[in-house]
């Protein structure tokens, strides 16, 4: 199992490296192949960090870098803030976006530890409206395989993932619920929510 996983991780790293070397410098229109390529590269980097055996803190900063590189971070932050975003000042939005990236990397980074010894495989890609849905299967030790879906768009001019579903559970929706509840609990204060995001798990 360990050997197999290591081999798989090595393959994924190889694939990720190959993807970067071969990635065209000119921006290309998003299609099935490029959406799949993005998720392959993303999964490759995540697997590499998990396999690195680094300290948790080091892993979190790696995940933050990966999130910023592959994720449509401004869209994700705007969605998470929901309707409260309409009354937020630009300074609040900017600060929230930065804190939210750290929070997400820490929260999901610690979840990824449960993935140790597991792997994600890209299964299929399909166009949906103006974006692409990349379905992957997660194989975890002692678990039936389950579906993890990434949504990819070129809204920003570059291919980025803007949402993720784990067995149908919408990451964006879950975080919007969380941020909304945090704001409610703090008497509607966006500033207090942003300040407390630093310690939120």
């Amino acid at each position, binding site marked *: 199992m360990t050997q197999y996983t290591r081999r798989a991780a090595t393959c994924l790293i190889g694939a990720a490296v190959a993807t970067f070397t071969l990635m065209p410098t000119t921006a290309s229109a998003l299609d099935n192949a490029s959406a799949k390529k993005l998720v392959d590269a993303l999964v490759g980097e995540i697997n590499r960090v998990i396999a690195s055996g680094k300290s948790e803190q080091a892993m979190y900063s790696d995940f933050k870098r990966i999130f910023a590189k592959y994720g449509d971070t401004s869209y994700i932050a705007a969605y998470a803030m929901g309707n409260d975003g309409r009354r937020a000042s630009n300074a609040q939005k900017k600060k929230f976006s930065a804190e939210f990236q750290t929070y997400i990397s820490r929260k999901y980074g610690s979840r990824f530890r*449960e993935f140790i010894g597991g792997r994600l495989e890209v299964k299929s890609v399909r166009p949906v409206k103006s974006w692409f849905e990349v379905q992957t299967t997660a194989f975890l030790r002692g678990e039936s395989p389950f579906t993890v879906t990434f949504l990819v768009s070129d809204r920003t001019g570059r291919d980025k993932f803007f949402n993720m579903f784990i067995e149908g559970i919408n990451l964006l929706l879950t975080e919007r619920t969380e941020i909304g509840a945090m704001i409610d609990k703090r008497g509607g204060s966006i500033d207090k929510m942003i300040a407390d995001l630093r310690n939120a798990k």
Partner: protein
Amino acid sequence: MGEVLKISPIRARRISFMALAPLCLILAGCATPDGARVSGDVFDPYEENNRQTHELNRALDKALVRPVGVGYTAIVPDDLEGSIGNFASNLGLPGTVVNNLLQGNVEGAFTNTMRFVFNTTLGFGGLFDVAGDFQIDEVKADFGQTLYVWGVPEGAYVELPVLGPSTERAMVGRAVDLFTNPLSYVLPSPDKYIGTAAGVASKVGDRGRYAETVDSVLYNSADSYSQARGIYLQNRRFELGDGDAAEEINPFDLNTEGF
């Protein structure tokens, strides 16, 4: 239920029919929201009661389920824990096959039957998931899902004591599933309780294995009730194939300026 073997099939049928009658009444009384539902939508008219049950469940988890789960995972070796889980899920398969058939899913019924045969024989009574090694994975089904296939609406969200998040439809399904597994009519009584015990053990073990993830929902989130409700409903609808959540967000509709 232990007496079922001793009574005649006709009486058994009458008993299960009698058990079903009140369920039909509950189903007919299933509350439904007005208008079409979008995935991610929540219909929760019993929220106040549900929140009380949620607090009860959290207290129960904190005092009993979590510590036992964490202890279980720490003490029981991983392989044994896996085998207990395999054993329990294998014993549940005949019930799954019944539901596959009730839903008209012959292929699913066949796959699950193959799984059951392989794992019961080559997998030493279901302790090893031999079928899984051959990619013969379980095609999940339960009576709540059967009701969905038959067109029964989801009903309101309900948080059940001990059992946790559910819907009115899923709750009725759970009750009926106490009777859908043919094994419970065939196995002598001590044996079938071993299966039940293994099922409980495997659930408790899951609580320990995924302690951090469950903790993050139950104890670290700003509103654990809403989170548990949202996560359950989305996951349940996904399993049922009810609605395509991924289609409902348009990334180009949102104003991201300033973020």
